[in-house]
């Protein structure tokens, strides 16, 4: 019988949300605040208003250079170490938007310079040049589980001995292009999200988010005790009605690695997925308190897994987890925690994300 490799450690982890860094964000969440505000979906007067959480003062319309780049530089300045993007220190960049809004900007304004940011590879190349990274940069994108894939790929790289440290870096800044798409699906509407709340109409919010994690084999206060991925291969925008996709992903987690966990779920605010997700989590982790923070941060899309990991680790350090902001009882299950709670007695957190295309991802984070 093969011995599983030791858990990969998290040497550093930070995030940026519409509130600020992970510490400021945690303060805001513990205070029950939301960064979501009703904004015109396309940024034009008269547009439908939808809940968006944007980093303060950054322009919603695409600019050259990108208006979000200074915020990303501020975040990147906190990454410890040097030589990122080299063979022994590879970078895995994840996200679901990258600079796609620049395609709409090109259509609106005709400036071909926007095309240099419009695709994931071009956008990441621009970011890598700006941040001084070398060429060992891998781009991974799979909708809203993108960051989980980056963490898993970095873990495999370290387990294989192919690197000394790995940087997972993720960013998603909301554009009119992306907000318009979710608005067309009718899940981004005038209502503010109320994750896991049993109500007649569902809705989500969208938010800016970026984060990083430095993974190593032997340094850091926290560890990723297990990771899992599953694709139910059912439908582009719908899950199997029996929730088996959610359950299959959770079943692959080494739950025995920790005794008592709390749950940071995906919880966007949609009803069908919320019901399936809460039921599956309840089955896999009976009585574990469940929270979602997307009612405050908005859905940070492909970056949500890493953004929420950074906040979860900050919460563990603080000893207190924020509740499910924006929602009130009744929840889909009694396990939904609406208020903040103390983390004394908990050994770790299970973080989950779900994505278009039937993808499910989860990991367990705990003290090393």
């Amino acid at each position, binding site marked *: 019988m093969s011995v599983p490799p030791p858990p990969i450690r998290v040497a550093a982890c930070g995030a940026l949300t519409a509130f600020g860094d992970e510490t400021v964000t945690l303060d805001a969440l513990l205070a029950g605040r939301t960064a979501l505000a009703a904004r015109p979906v396309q940024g034009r007067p008269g547009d*439908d208003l939808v809940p968006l959480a944007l980093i303060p003062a950054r322009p919603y319309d695409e600019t050259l250079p990108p208006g979000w780049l200074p915020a990303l530089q501020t975040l990147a300045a906190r990454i410890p170490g040097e030589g990122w993007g080299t063979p022994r220190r590879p970078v895995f960049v994840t996200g679901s938007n990258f600079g796609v809004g620049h395609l709409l900007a090109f259509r609106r304004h005709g400036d071909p310079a926007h095309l240099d940011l419009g695709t994931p590879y071009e956008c990441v190349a621009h970011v890598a040049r700006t941040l001084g990274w070398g060429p060992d940069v891998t781009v991974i994108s799979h909708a809203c589980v993108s960051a989980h894939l980056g963490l898993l790929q970095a873990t495999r790289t370290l387990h294989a001995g192919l690197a000394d440290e790995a940087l997972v870096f993720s960013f998603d800044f909301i554009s009119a292009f992306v907000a318009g798409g979710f608005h*067309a*699906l*009718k*899940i981004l*509407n*005038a*209502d503010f999200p109320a994750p896991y709340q049993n109500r*007649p*109409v*569902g*809705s989500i919010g969208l938010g800016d988010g970026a984060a990083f994690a430095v993974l190593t084999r032997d340094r850091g206060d926290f560890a990723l005790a297990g990771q899992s991925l599953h694709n139910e291969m059912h*439908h*582009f*925008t*719908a899950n199997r009605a029996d929730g088996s996709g959610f359950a299959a992903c959770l079943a692959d987690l080494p739950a025995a690695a920790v005794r008592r966990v709390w749950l940071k779920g995906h919880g966007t605010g*949609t*009803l069908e997925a919320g019901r399936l997700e809460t039921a599956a989590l309840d089955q896999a982790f009976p009585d574990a308190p469940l929270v979602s923070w997307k009612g405050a941060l908005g859905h940070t899309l492909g970056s949500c897994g890493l953004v929420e990991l950074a906040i979860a680790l900050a919460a563990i350090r603080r000893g207190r987890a924020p509740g499910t902001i924006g929602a009130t009882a009744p929840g889909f299950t009694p396990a939904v925690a609406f208020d903040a709670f103390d983390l004394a007695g908990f050994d770790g957190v299970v973080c989950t994300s779900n994505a278009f295309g039937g993808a499910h991802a989860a990991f367990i984070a705990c003290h090393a």
Partner: protein
Amino acid sequence: MSDPLKNQLKTLMIDTLRLEDVTPADIVDDEPLIGGGLSLDSIDALELVVRLEKEFGIKIGSSEESRTALASVNALADYIRAHADSSRLPAA
């Protein structure tokens, strides 16, 4: 006697979703549109909603409302009559 609005909706569905080998007569008024005999899915629903909003000047506010409206041709016709300006409706 056939309902002009329902006929218009069926024609619009066939046109928008490029339903090959389907005629208005093939679409049953009370059959579920999504997951029923037409095998429409949520992406089809999205396309249909966008077209209906343009055609009838209506605004469907949420995915739940969209699902209610698209329950069947009968439900869709009722929804359009309740929400569209009468000038947009075909003469009875």
